[in-house]
């Protein structure tokens, strides 16, 4: 276990030094301004809209982090051949991948905490101004939603590691990760549409239904972690849902990272 930690720390430092992180912080500041501006235009549920804006921009910024910082962390080692130096040390390839991933997880958690502070500040400012227009509002739900987003980003990052473990360039892993993200967020809707196709008046072959159902187990279901609507309206989320969602996220992440390290072990470097 010992070689994991240094790799993780180096990865984290490398990530935090990336200029993209500054860009993300700048965007977060803009989000605060936009939040104040838009809330002026809302008649009744100012609270809902400001929570929407804050949580959505956090998700978006987290996505940018995974796509443009995360993928490069692994790909750069491969592209620039610095991986030879690492693998020459007494560390297995599997440990290398897991260490890198832990560093990325650390980076995601730290960045999301910073973004969370920005979000809280922006919601707080709007709430001070329109305190009477926050009929259904709860801070715990907002924090729960941000934690769920963090978990979904960790899952997506694990997938990007899986793609990077076999893709020849970082561009291919980028495209595959974006595809996984889109599939992950539309999977539930597509499955519901295919399974109840009669209600919207379309014909779907039974084979397609089976295919989608199988795909549902293979591809990640990221919409499980999207509880922004519930957070914005303070709708109840049962403890059992939280438990199963978190376990799904952790188990899926572990499976993906295990497969990634298996593939990476067999990979031949030029």
């Amino acid at each position, binding site marked *: 276990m010992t070689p994991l930690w240094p790799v993780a720390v180096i990865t984290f430092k490398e990530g935090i030094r990336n200029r993209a992180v500054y860009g993300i912080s700048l965007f977060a500041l803009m989000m605060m301004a936009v939040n104040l501006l*838009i809330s002026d*235009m*809302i*008649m*009744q*549920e100012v609270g*809902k*809209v400001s929570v*929407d*804006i804050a*949580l*959505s921009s956090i*998700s*978006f910024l987290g996505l940018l982090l995974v796509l443009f910082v995360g993928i490069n962390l692994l790909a750069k080692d491969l592209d620039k051949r610095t991986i030879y130096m690492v693998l020459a040390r007494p560390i297995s390839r599997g440990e290398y991948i897991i260490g890198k991933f832990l560093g990325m997880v650390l980076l995601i958690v730290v960045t999301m905490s910073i973004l969370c502070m920005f979000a809280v500040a922006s919601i707080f400012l709007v709430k001070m101004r329109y305190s009477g227009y926050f009929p259904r509002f709860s801070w715990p739900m907002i924090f729960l939603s941000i934690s769920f987003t963090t978990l979904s980003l960790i899952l997506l990052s694990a997938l990007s590691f899986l793609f990077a473990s076999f893709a020849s360039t970082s561009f291919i892993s980028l495209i595959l990760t974006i595809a996984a*993200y*889109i599939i992950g*967020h*539309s999977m539930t*809707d*597509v499955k519901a*549409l295919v399974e109840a196709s009669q209600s*919207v008046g379309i014909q779907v072959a039974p084979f397609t239904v089976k295919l989608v159902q199988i795909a549902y187990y293979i591809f990640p279901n*990221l*919409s499980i972690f*999207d509880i*922004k*609507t519930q957070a*914005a*309206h303070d*709708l109840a989320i049962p403890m059992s849902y939280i438990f199963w969602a978190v376990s799904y996220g952790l188990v899926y992440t572990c499976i993906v990272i295990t497969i990634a390290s298996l593939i990476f072990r067999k990979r031949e470097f030029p």
Partner: protein
Amino acid sequence: MRRALPVVLLMLLLPFHILGLQAVTREWKSLPKGDDIAYVIPSPILKVTSLEFKGLTSDVMFLRALVFFGGLLERGNIQETKKWEWRWIHDTLNASTDLDPYFYDPYYFGEAQLTWGANMIKEANTLLDKGSKYRDWDWMLPFFIGFNHFYFLQENDKASEYLMTASKRPGGSSMFASLATRLAYKGQRTENAIVFVEEMLKEEKNESVREEFETRLEALKGILLLERAVIVYKDRFGIAPFSLKDLITAGIFAKLPEDPYGGEFYIALDGSIKTTSDLRLMK
């Protein structure tokens, strides 16, 4: 000289850029084309394409409707708004609430503008029905629907149904309950009204409100009794009683029930039982 050349070139190009953009914008406006805003992307498509940003997309759709309506106001007389423009506002609000059915503002805006402005009562009610279904803690939406049924559509039965729903929700005023029973009474739904008032009585802790409910309940029970007696009379004699006195002559009643509001029961022209107090305390 060489170094100054790019600067001079920029200086020359800049006025041309501004001039050109202004001209082409002017020309673009007069290009023959359809109303580019006249359609709304169907919500199933919006749902899939907005990924995890459904709430935000819902907000944006609502703001679009609001800005569009602002444009109509600026144009002047709101009466001159075309049918497709109202329809567009309705479709946009509908899409916004498909993405986030818990969002209150589109319903609120729809109730204000689609009814009074556009006269699209049925559409407004369908929209509000969706909101009432999801926002089951909110008495405002069923109250709006009840009002629309009562005021615009003159459907008292429906109105009373929705007012009953509204009065049962947290924060709903007990005034709705009395309003609902009045409408129910006029809409010949006496039994429903009785059940409703009994239900409200169970929940109510305020003594003066309880008293009011009990009076209303007594009056409604009197009406129900008379309605049933009229049916018995019809069964026996094959014709409807001419007045309530006929019920006593026929031996169905020894004494007519009293209206606790101080009025007198009578048989209205349509055959239903009414009272001169109209279920309001007579002073």
